[in-house]
């Protein structure tokens, strides 16, 4: 990074752009000056800097593929695609924008709040840019489509996320401000993680042979979670302590034990049903839009 930004010294050759093997200093100075200027004028310096910053922020597992995607998206940004033929139709442009926005949104995990917020802003700008036949601003239809795509690509079952989408979607003609956009996308990503956790939890509860769980056990766990989520009158720290004591291993063990001892076994609970009921607990706490 420092090599990209370093200003050329008065006499010595610049550190970044010349080979260390150059012999003649004066020739190196003259050539390097024009090289660096050329790169800066074309905008490559700034672009590379932004690309490296993005890599540092996202820390991808495959940096090369990541950079390839990044530059591909950069290329789509310019309205004229290399001057080939007529510009793409409105629908295609919309899909491209959506794809790009989704790519931005996936760069950082939602828990990396600062990076995530940055990416949300970029995605919002990308979607709200005015076009030839498009007013600036994000309309409800695009926003809802984006949320659906996020949930679909996150491999959450349709029935599980449908109630959330109903809560946070916007109508087609409504204009979505940035804060609503940010809240909606964050909620979707958090729900995806929640569903993943619920899936892992179900794996702990299920009978490996039958791939279903004892209904009493599943219900007891869901009931305990629901109890811990009940809004109590106490202020925040006391509420957390209380939830922690309810959800601790000892307390849970007792609850499970009581559940199994109390009732006779009934119809088993499937994974889908468990996920749906768990997600319902989450979605109940989401504030609807507007």
């Amino acid at each position, binding site marked *: 990074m420092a090599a990209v930004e370093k200003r050329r010294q008065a006499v010595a050759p610049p550190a970044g752009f010349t080979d260390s093997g150059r012999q003649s200093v004066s020739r190196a100075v003259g050539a390097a000056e024009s090289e660096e200027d050329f790169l800066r004028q074309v905008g490559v310096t700034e672009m590379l800097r932004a690309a490296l910053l993005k890599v540092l922020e996202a820390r991808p597992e495959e940096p090369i593929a990541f950079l390839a995607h990044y530059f591909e998206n950069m290329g789509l940004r310019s309205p004229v695609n290399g001057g080939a033929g007529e510009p793409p139709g409105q629908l295609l442009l919309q899909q491209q924008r959506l794809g790009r926005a989704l790519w931005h949104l996936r760069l950082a995990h939602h828990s990396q709040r600062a990076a995530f917020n940055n990416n949300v802003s970029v995605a919002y700008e990308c979607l709200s840019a005015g076009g030839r036949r498009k007013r600036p601003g994000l309309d409800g239809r695009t926003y809802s489509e984006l949320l659906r795509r996020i949930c679909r690509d996150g491999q959450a079952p349709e029935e599980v996320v449908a109630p959330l989408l109903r809560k946070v979607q916007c109508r087609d003609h409504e204009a979505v401000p940035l804060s609503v956009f940010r*809240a909606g996308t964050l909620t979707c990503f958090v729900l995806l993680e929640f569903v993943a956790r619920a899936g892992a*939890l179900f794996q702990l509860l299920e009978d490996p042979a039958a791939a279903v769980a004892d209904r009493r056990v599943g219900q007891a766990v869901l009931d305990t*979670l629901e109890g811990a989520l009940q809004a109590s009158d106490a202020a925040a720290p006391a509420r957390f302590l209380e939830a922690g004591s309810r959800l601790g291993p000892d307390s849970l063990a007792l609850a499970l*034990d009581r559940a199994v*001892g109390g009732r006779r076994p009934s119809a088993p609970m499937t994974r889908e049903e468990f996920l749906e009921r768990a997600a319902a607990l*989450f979605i109940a706490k989401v504030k609807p839009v*507007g």
Partner: protein
Amino acid sequence: MSRVLVPCHVKGTVALQVGDVWTSQGRPGVLVIDVTFPCVTPFEGITFKNYYTAAGIRVCQHTSAHTPAKWVTCLWDCLMPDPHSEEGAQEYILCDMARISELHLILQQPSPLWLSFTVEELQIYQQGPKSPSMIFPKWLSHPMPCEQPALLHEGLPDPSRVSSEVQQMWALTEMIRASHTSARIGHFDVDGCYDLNLLSYT
């Protein structure tokens, strides 16, 4: 425990001097503060703020009731460890005593460095009523028993792993519950919908 201030009357400081007050020009080095009480109430302690007093301070208590009244020294020579330095010069002091009816505070000038010396914010208090017990939440006053109950049933999942997953799910939900936006949705203007002619007919 709460304190109840006992009303008292603090008389002004009186300098103790040897000889005639007219002849000696210097300022005295010993002051006496006399504290009287309008009604005899047993009190528990005094607090005051020291102000450069005290090579020593004698607090004389006059214990009443059973024994004949006598004066007892409570505090002596401990307010300022080094009389010439600042240490302890402006501290708050608290003394506990029992069953006192009269009080003399005898102040001594600690050193010639400190020209004025006194005690401030003198307060006498007695034991107040005990504060009402805090109402603990139910779950705090009935803690879980320490020993892990033997699982009666087999085939139950590992509670610590279940607990870990459930706690994470709880945390995610709490985070979403806490975050909210108060922004309102806007509307795109639909061309012609605010046409005056149309509106007048609705």
